[in-house]
């Protein structure tokens, strides 16, 4: 049975409500299942929406092919519309769901601010839940491509990223990575169509390594989960630290997922290092920092890290006070663009933005810039990718950045200290850091 006609009727009801409410509320956009409805308030004209219905001839042809198939395949094939289809594969469930929300909000804000159009074309968002499950990533990505998206944004988790690369590698579907830091995306699996707007795990840790060495520390213990992002981050730190004579006294890898770190605190307390470098994110970052504080190690063994306080300061509370971390963004960066971004974000969503909002915002700004440059003709891939590469991120909240040859951001990294629920800027410790991108053919 072909769901095509069914889909047409069912989805129009919620859309009418959203449409009649004079603009597409944030909830409608986030509920997203209804792909046909544009998420931008201004540009939705009634005529464009209705004309986008399904032509009869197309139903009959596809219906016939499916006559015997036991599986009911929701097969939506629509007449080409002026809309620009952008696929979004971010997590709505599981441990990293809040990152998905923040990235989506940042992206939405950027596009809203420039009139809601990409190169004069309305945007049709097709959102799928990545469930932070790498095994389902290839399937979900292929579905977005199948729906006609020639631009895909996502994911958060590096395992999901590898699954996406398997499907999108070597195709001309443009992939914009707003968070996952796996080096492979801009390393051995890099490609003309793959751009990252966040940072590689190596890139964020390397400056911290050099900085601690410059501060005169000689022996540091490293710790993270036993998974790709963790090992890459520790490797980046080690390279930075060793380049200035530092030495790693012990490398601890906790089996993932670890909820109770206290047994490691016992090990850390007995270590002879002068400081510890840690890489954890989300719930584990909260647990690690809180338990580190409760173990009273903050004064005996200073804690430095990456991603330890991103979006988790409210949950960590007093335990994170004074924690020094490095990242390509700080909440109180003295740039005018940052102040404007933060006030616009708070006004639009009522919450303070964090680094994921920034990365979402930059992804949105990148899309606006490139679509404008090619006048909305994103099908001309070489021109579109060239336009993407030409992005200078002048008005980015994190400060100007541009793409390296491997299409990973070349950006400054700042030392920040956690204070009063914010990662406060201390100093710029590394400028124009470029990911080594081993094995990338573009370099």
């Amino acid at each position: 049975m072909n769901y095509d006609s069914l889909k047409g009727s069912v989805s129009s009801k919620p859309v009418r409500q959203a449409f009649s409410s004079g603009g597409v509320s944030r909830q409608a956009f986030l509920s997203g299942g209804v792909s046909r409805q544009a998420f931008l308030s201004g540009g939705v004209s009634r005529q464009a929406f209705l004309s986008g219905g399904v032509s009869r001839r197309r139903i009959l042809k596809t219906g016939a092919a499916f006559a015997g198939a036991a599986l009911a395949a929701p097969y939506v094939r629509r007449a080409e519309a002026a809309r620009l289809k952008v696929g979004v594969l971010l997590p709505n469930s599981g441990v990293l769901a809040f990152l998905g929300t923040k990235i989506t909000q940042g992206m939405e804000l950027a596009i809203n601010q420039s009139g809601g159009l990409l190169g004069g074309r309305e945007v049709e968002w097709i959102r799928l839940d990545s469930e932070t499950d790498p095994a389902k990533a290839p399937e979900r990505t292929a579905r977005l491509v199948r729906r006609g998206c020639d631009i895909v944004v996502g994911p958060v988790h590096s395992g999901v990223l590898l699954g996406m690369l398997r499907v999108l590698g070597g195709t001309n579907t443009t992939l914009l990575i707003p968070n996952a830091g796996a080096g492979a995306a801009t390393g051995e699996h890099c490609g003309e169509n793959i751009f990252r707007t966040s940072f590689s795990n190596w890139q964020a840790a390397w400056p911290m390594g050099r900085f601690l060495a410059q501060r005169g520390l000689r022996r540091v213990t490293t710790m993270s989960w036993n998974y790709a992002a963790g090992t890459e981050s520790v490797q980046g730190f080690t390279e930075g630290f060793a380049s200035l004579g530092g030495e790693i006294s012990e490398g601890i890898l906790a089996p993932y997922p670890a909820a109770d770190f206290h047994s490691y605190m016992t090990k850390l307390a007995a270590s002879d290092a002068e400081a510890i470098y840690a890489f954890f994110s989300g719930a584990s970052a909260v647990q690690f920092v809180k338990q580190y504080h409760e173990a009273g190690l903050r004064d005996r063994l200073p804690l430095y890290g990456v991603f330890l306080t991103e979006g988790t300061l409210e949950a960590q509370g007093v335990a994170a006070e004074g924690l020094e971390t490095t990242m390509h963004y700080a909440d109180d960066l003295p740039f005018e663009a940052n102040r404007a971004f933060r006030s616009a974000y708070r006004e639009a969503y009522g919450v303070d933005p964090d680094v994921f909002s920034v990365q979402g915002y930059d992804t949105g700004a990148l899309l606006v810039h490139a679509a404008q440059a090619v006048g909305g003709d994103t099908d001309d891939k070489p021109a579109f990718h060239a336009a993407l590469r030409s992005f200078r991120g002048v008005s980015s909240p994190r400060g100007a950045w541009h793409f390296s040859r491997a299409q990973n951001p070349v950006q400054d990294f700042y030392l920040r200290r956690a204070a009063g629920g914010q990662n406060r800027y201390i100093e710029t410790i590394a400028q124009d850091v470029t990911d080594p991108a081993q094995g990338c053919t573009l370099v």
Partner: protein
Amino acid sequence: MFLRSATRRNSVRQAAASDASHESFTRLRNLASRWRDGPAPLVFLLPPLLVATWFVPDYDLQRLAKFLIFAILAMGLDFLAGRGHLVSLGQAGFFAIGAYSFALLAGTCDGEPLLSLLLGMLVAGLIAGGFACLAGVPALRTRGVYFLMVTLALGQMVFYALHDIPLFGGSDGIFVCASPRAIEVLSLSGSRVYYLMTVASFGFAVLLFWCLRRSFFGTLLGASATAEVRLAALGYAVLPIRLAAFTLVGAVAGYAGALEAMRFRFVNPELATWHLSGLLLVMVILGGRNRLWGAVLGAALVIGLEDLLVYWFPDHWQIGIGVLAVVVALFLPNGVLFFARRLSFRRLGVWLVRQKESPLR
């Protein structure tokens, strides 16, 4: 059952003689269910699946392939749990062992000749079967809910082994290098050849499990479920029967794992989570236990529903599967096929009245 020839001659003679009493109705129903349990529906299912190779776009072929792979897995689990009452909550473990064995065995990255792929898949199945046999010897000493727990432990052991041991690429999984070479003469691209292999595997699986269910071995497995002590007292060693079934179903799961590894040429430890094993059980129960086509129907319903829900309600699609599982558990413990088979209004009344003491206990 295996005594078919004797009873058929017998039943034809008797059907004519006795009046339209309860016996003849039972016999007619048995004959009908035997047809439904046989491979005949393949005649209606295979042609459209084969035709689809040339007409359906690649993405939807890949989704059909996913359904066929899960149908193979569900048929295996149904033979084990439905017929032999060996309820396993760890089938995903052997599925993942097959996928990873194939991934590690895979050869060069450009197109592979069909034969070497087939060999790779069979070897992956054998490896998974080997593990099933090794683990089965101790595991099958337990009964009932303890067996459920043992298989849960087995599945989790495979998950953490694949997740923590560096050789298996940790939590991000491995890229698989093998994919079938295109066949120009039939104008089939690599992925369509892969789809054809999946359809063929599905056809063989249906025949295999149909033969198994009809075989003496299948009868013994069923007998070991209803009256194990009696079977032993009659001179049959029960453990080897169950071990053979466990090993065989493990090998088929491994073979299906190899097929899954080739679908997107990417394997990940998440293939071994107990959630997948749980979903397989949902398929078996939903379709209808101890029915050849129950498992296939269950797989179609669950995968079709999941696909729809994920697309229409990306935020809260889990509610659909959750409600489905609860509804089937409470009202349709014997599955949809059972319900469909008995669908006549008089019977519906009888069924509703007798729902308290359901026949399956």
